[in-house]
């Protein structure tokens, strides 16, 4: 058996069913072995599409996503996707070919120091030197990627190692003496946390992506205590977006209620989140009244990294919640809830009636038509924030977006990965005209594998989010953000790829358009021509605090102090 075959067998032993990838010289022995393997391979058109699809697969399924690429240019095309998976703690294993061992370091054809390049953007990486190490390395890679704080792991395999005769054992043992994530929270700290919550007058529960797998425990805990729940962009879906205890998303484009709740909170229980600056704004002015911040995270390095934590709990959010649930009591929060309710009803997310079609309306129409029953993916920009605001998902692993890295172009490949992970479900990609054009070649992948994803392009003819900042902070000097003069006809583009194209230009055609998308059997690319100068509000300017929140477009000004 050759190394390549041993590699694939090792992947099978990890329960891998599907690999996203793109071949090339240095990975050819493995592609040759793949020809006889039961593993399913999805041929993408660009390795970036592959790694994002693997990420989407992982995020939608909770399993490890696998991507494969050749050396040099192929491997380097994974860089953005690996960084994206790293920032959003997604379990991905990337397998790359490299030049034969004897050529490493000689600037050989298609050689790049891929382990060097990916060191800061992977949880760990390997350069395989001995073919017989393959089973152990694969086992370790999956273990590292999927346990503790999940993340991407890269395995770089020289071509001659793939070709070498494998004489080792496929049964391998982990050899990771330095890797032992703490899973169970410290009982004393958990007790302190419960105590602090019980004494709190204005507590809030903040939830991040690290609690997506803890949704059942989270729901039980919130309902038992009656705590108001706020979910970050990465936490959307971890708690049902239609639940009366839910206040929405915090941060730059969060709801008034969520941001004010944090601003006035005396005790904050933060679960599986890392206090991103898009959430905190200026840290020194974040949650100024909170005398107790309880931070639960599986990664000790997250605790105290950004905000001062009074009760640190290192552990898996699900196990910690399970423990907390045992001691949880209904809290007396009637007065607090009266305040929260007031903010919530006074400042709901609103769509101002306007003569032209607006992105928010399109998203809301899809939400209504589907009953919120879809897996949503997004690009990055205004449409992403609108989707977060107007498509409140109710189930975990159903809102797939690039939070930490903010990677334009993830929408379509995430949708591909999600559709493969959950084939029976409706997968909706709300995309921007800018974002979509970063990876649109993956339409070919959609066609090739007959994936019924629905791409909804909210075409405002601009790099909208950048235009909004130029509008607010650069005196409306719209430098290099105009796209409308050179955008393709998206519906015809879809047709060129062999899938259904839909175009909606007028407000009155909205319903018809939504139906055309949802009633289509297979994949669709729908272009909704939306108002070109929309802004995302509410907004807390970068580096601001809850008090600086702008609720509506300053052209129709309303500001609220927290």
């Amino acid at each position, binding site marked *: 058996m050759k190394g390549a075959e041993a590699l694939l067998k090792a992947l099978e032993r990890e329960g891998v069913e599907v690999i996203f990838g793109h071949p090339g010289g240095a990975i050819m022995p493995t592609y040759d072995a793949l020809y006889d393997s039961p593993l399913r391979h999805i041929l993408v058109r660009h390795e970036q599409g592959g790694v994002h699809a693997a990420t989407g697969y992982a995020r939608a399924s909770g399993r490890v996503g696998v991507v494969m690429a050749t050396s040099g240019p192929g491997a380097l095309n994974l860089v953005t996707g690996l960084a994206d998976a790293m920032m959003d703690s997604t379990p991905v294993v990337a397998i790359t070919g490299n030049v034969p061992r004897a050529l490493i370091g000689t600037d050989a054809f298609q050689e790049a120091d891929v*382990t*060097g390049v990916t*060191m*800061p953007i992977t*949880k*760990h990486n390997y*350069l395989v030197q001995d073919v017989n190490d393959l089973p152990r390395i694969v086992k370790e890679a999956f*273990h*590292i990627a999927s*346990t*503790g704080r999940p993340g991407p792991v890269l395995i770089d395999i020289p071509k001659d190692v793939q070709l070498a005769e494998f004489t080792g054992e496929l049964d391998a043992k982990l050899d*990771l*003496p*330095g*890797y*032992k*994530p*703490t*899973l*169970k929270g410290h009982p004393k700290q958990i007790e302190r946390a419960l105590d602090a919550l019980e004494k709190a007058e204005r507590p809030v529960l903040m939830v991040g992506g690290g609690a997506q797998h803890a949704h059942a425990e989270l729901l039980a805990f919130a309902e038992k205590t009656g705590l108001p729940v706020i979910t970050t962009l990465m936490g959307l879906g971890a708690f049902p977006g239609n639940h009366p205890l839910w206040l929405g998303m915090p941060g730059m484009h969060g709801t008034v209620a969520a941001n004010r709740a944090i601003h006035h909170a005396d005790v904050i229980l933060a679960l599986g989140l890392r206090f991103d600056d898009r959430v905190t704004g200026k840290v020194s002015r974040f949650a100024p009244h909170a005398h107790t911040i309880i931070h639960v995270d599986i*990664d*000790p*390095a997250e605790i*105290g*990294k950004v905000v001062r934590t009074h009760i640190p709990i290192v552990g898996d959010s699900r196990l910690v919640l399970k423990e907390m649930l045992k001691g949880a009591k209904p809290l007396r929060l009637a007065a607090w809830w009266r305040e929260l309710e007031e903010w919530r009803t006074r400042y709901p997310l609103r769509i101002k009636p306007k003569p032209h079609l607006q992105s928010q309306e399109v998203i809301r129409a899809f939400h209504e038509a589907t009953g919120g029953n879809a897996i949503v993916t997004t690009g990055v920009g205004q449409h992403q924030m609108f989707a977060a605001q107007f498509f409140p998902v109710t189930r975990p692993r159903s809102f797939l977006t690039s939070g930490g890295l903010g990677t334009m172009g993830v929408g379509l490949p995430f949708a591909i990965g999600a559709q493969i992970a959950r084939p029976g479900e409706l997968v909706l990609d709300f995309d921007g005209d800018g974002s979509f054009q970063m990876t649109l070649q993956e339409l070919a992948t959609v066609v090739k594998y007959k994936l019924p994803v629905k791409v909804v392009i909210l075409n405002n003819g601009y790099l909208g989010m950048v235009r909004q900042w130029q509008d607010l902070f650069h005196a409306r000097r719209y430098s290099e953000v105009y796209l409308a003069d050179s955008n393709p006809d998206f519906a015809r583009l879809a047709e060129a790829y062999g899938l259904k194209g839909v175009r909606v230009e007028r407000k009155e055609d909205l319903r018809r358009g939504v139906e055309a998308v949802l009633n289509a059997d297979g994949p669709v690319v729908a272009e909704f021509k939306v108002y070109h100068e929309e802004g995302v509000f509410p907004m807390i300017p970068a580096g601001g605090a809850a008090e600086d929140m702008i609720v509506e477009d300053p052209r129709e000004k309303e500001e609220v102090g927290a």
Partner: protein
Amino acid sequence: MRHIISVLVQDHPRVLNRITGLFARRGFNLESLAVGTTHQPGLSRISLVVSGDDRTLEQVEKQLNRLIEVLKVTDHTEPHVERELCLVKVHVGGLEERLAVKDIQEAFRARVVDVAHKSLILELTGDSKKVDSFVEALRPYGILEVMRTGAVAMSRGERVLKLREKKEAV
């Protein structure tokens, strides 16, 4: 505050790269770094001299611990021994200078390890402060070269830097 940190690592290729990369990427201030093998095959020990406030130091420790090949990290706040090796090549013009340098050498208990017509190489071990003063004392005579290894440290007494106890199976 200056801290000296010992890190026990698996001596895999690139592990040093991971550590220095971590410092660069997170903006931690690394003053010196010394690496060597241990009595246990496969394990190396790194001494880092880092400066920063408590919060930074806490992050340095935690971020180092995140690296898969890092087995143990200790910030030596407890009583410990700290040593640095330094070689100084100093210019000695005439007899007078030679005698003066010899005085310094004796005062610091340094050793002469090379004698040439117009220069000497002196060797000194000591904590970094002592090495600093030694170099300063020699400066007026015309230092030609200084080579310092960076500090290494070890806790006094019973405490040893060893593999973490197995806490929990994953």
